[in-house]
């Protein structure tokens, strides 16, 4: 399996962050994992990466309900960034609200990135499949 250079985990719940990290440690080869407590912090991180000409993350795990800037607001800003590479964004949410599902469809259509919708809890058996970088 190809080694993934950079993974972002954006979630305000430390247990979820811990869980995803732990699963990735077990199943995926990667160089770095960065975690952010809300969308704003993550966006700032990406802008910094872009500014410094460093590699942008290939896979992002994105929570929806977060303080300050939620997952949708993050996506809104992210998809307009000048990123040519196709980034894999895994929405990971405990929400079963159909409105959230619709929102996902909306952003998926709008963006050239690969956006998937996943409901918590993520299983160890699934994590490898959704961490394959987009092609």
């Amino acid at each position, binding site marked *: 399996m190809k080694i993934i250079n950079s993974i972002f985990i954006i979630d305000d*719940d430390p*247990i979820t962050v811990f869980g995803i990290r732990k699963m990735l440690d077990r199943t995926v080869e990667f160089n770095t994992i960065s975690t952010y407590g809300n969308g704003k912090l993550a966006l700032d991180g990406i802008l910094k990466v872009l500014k410094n000409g460093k590699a942008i993350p290939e896979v992002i795990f994105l929570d929806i309900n977060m*303080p*300050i800037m939620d997952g949708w607001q993050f996506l809104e800003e992210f998809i307009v960034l000048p990123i040519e590479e196709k980034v894999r964004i895994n929405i990971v949410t*405990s929400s079963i*609200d159909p409105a959230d599902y619709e929102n996902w469809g909306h952003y998926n259509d709008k963006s050239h990135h690969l956006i998937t919708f996943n409901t918590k809890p993520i299983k160890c058996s699934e994590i490898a499949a959704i961490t394959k970088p987009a092609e």
Partner: protein
Amino acid sequence: MLKSSQIDPNNYLIKQLPKATAFLNKKLEVIYASDQWIEDFEFSNGKVIGKKIGELLTHLSKDLQKDFKDCLKGNNGSGIKECYNVKDNPKKWNEWTNIPWYDEKENIIGVIVQTESITQKINNIPNIERLQLLIEEKSSNSSIGSWQYDAELNSLWWCEMSKQIHEVPKDFAPKIETFIDFFKEGHSKNTISMAFFEASEKGISWKEELQIVTEKGNEKWIITTGKPIYKNDKCIGLVGTFQDINEQVITNKKTEENELLLRTLIDSLPMNVFVKDLDSRKILVNKSELNFLGLKHESEALGKTDFDFLNKKNAQIGREEDIMVMENGIPMLKKETTNIKKDGTTTSFLTSKIPIKGANGKITGLVGLSLDISDLKKKEEELKNLINVTSLQNKKLVNFAHIVSHNLRSHTANFSMLLEFLVSEKDEEEKQNLINMLVEASDHLLETLNNLNEVVVINTNVNLKKQNICLNKKIKSVEKNLSVFLKNKNVNIINNIGDNVKIKAIPAYLDSILTNFFTNSVMYKSPDRDPIIKLSSSSENGYTILSISDNGLGIDLKKYGDKLFGMYKTFHNNPDAKGIGLFLAKNQIEAMNGKITTSSEVGKGTTFNIHFNENN
């Protein structure tokens, strides 16, 4: 003697007689003649005496010739009407009265002739006939018959029309008893008997509308008149008329019945009916309309316009509708109108206005029908409110369901994940770590459940009653409870609320609301300055408004406005923020039928306006 007649004094005497007179001898030669006679017949003077009457008047009728002969035999003549042409004149008529002419010895010596011009009389005859015809014609057309009563002879006479009216044969001989007997028993007979008596005894004329029963048994309405005739101050009889008015009366009765029916109908209609003329003056209103106008009698409304009853603006709208309908001839159908009377009472109507056309096709006014739909409107309004409340409740419920599902699911998802790790974990230290996390997740779940429970209680506890609360008293008690917290943070509360301001609220909720907003203001204080909380109150549209302003961080409402009061929504990097305080406060305010509005400027501060409903 005859020859010297010209100088005969007799002749001179006769000549001067004022009447047309001539003396003829046995040969019917004119011996003497009055000037009048000569003038009447337009004979030339001097050529008359000695001439035979037959020469003077060429076409003597046989009757007259016979009359002369009779006279010569000693009989008086019988008065002959004779016509002849005088020159170019139209016919002239004379009445001849001839008598024998005797001498002193009673010998017949000729005929004395006296004539009287009756041309005018004769010419009048056709006039009288015409007049009679006219009367007959009139009497048959107008169905007016006449009658006469001769008191001396106690005889009654009916004209033909009178007989027709009574449906008796032409040869019927009316008597004074039958006259009265024809009248219908009861009122009619009593009235005519009395009238007849009063006329003959007191000379009072009558004109009565009464019913008769004809010979054939038909009941009929007639007008009968009677008038006494006097001779030397003595009533010698009566004259009068019968007029058949049966059809009229029946038609009138029918019309009256129809009118009554129509009137009953429009008065019983459960809607307002009115008819207006071209100037929008009411010319008919039904009972419902009268009731609406607050009047008792139709006469109070007739001739008046909406301007007399409704407020000016309202009446003007009505007048404009009237004009549209009457000018274009197009009915206005089922328009929803609101009528405001001068006393301010408001009624909703479903109004139709239909133009009325006269016989010549021109519009003469309009008929209006207004159905009072105030109750319907009220119910509709209630229904709308109910729908609003229901949909609001529904929205809340859906919202709550999402909160529950989201918040509970996030914790259970963590449980599930952590347990999956735990099952396969070999490392004891890591196991302990996972167990710690499970305990943490459990605590969070418990807390979430408590919060949710609190929301459920707020939204379902209908037993808590609102009370009149002095706002300042409550503020002071909350300040006291928070005194340590406020002192530690150097909070300055500036209270501009008067001690007399009272609100209707559930005390426990008000406690919680005030506590939440105060701590919220402090929690999101600006790092550059000590917190200042300003309190003020105002009143608006049935709400008492408590305004809480702070000089804190402020919040970008464009970005976060719709989430400000959401559960577990936090907007600043504040470790103490749980995103539950404003959520609960909002639920409590809404549970008391209040609402909350917010204004904020990033970096300057936030103002919350809490609307307390003044009604229960």
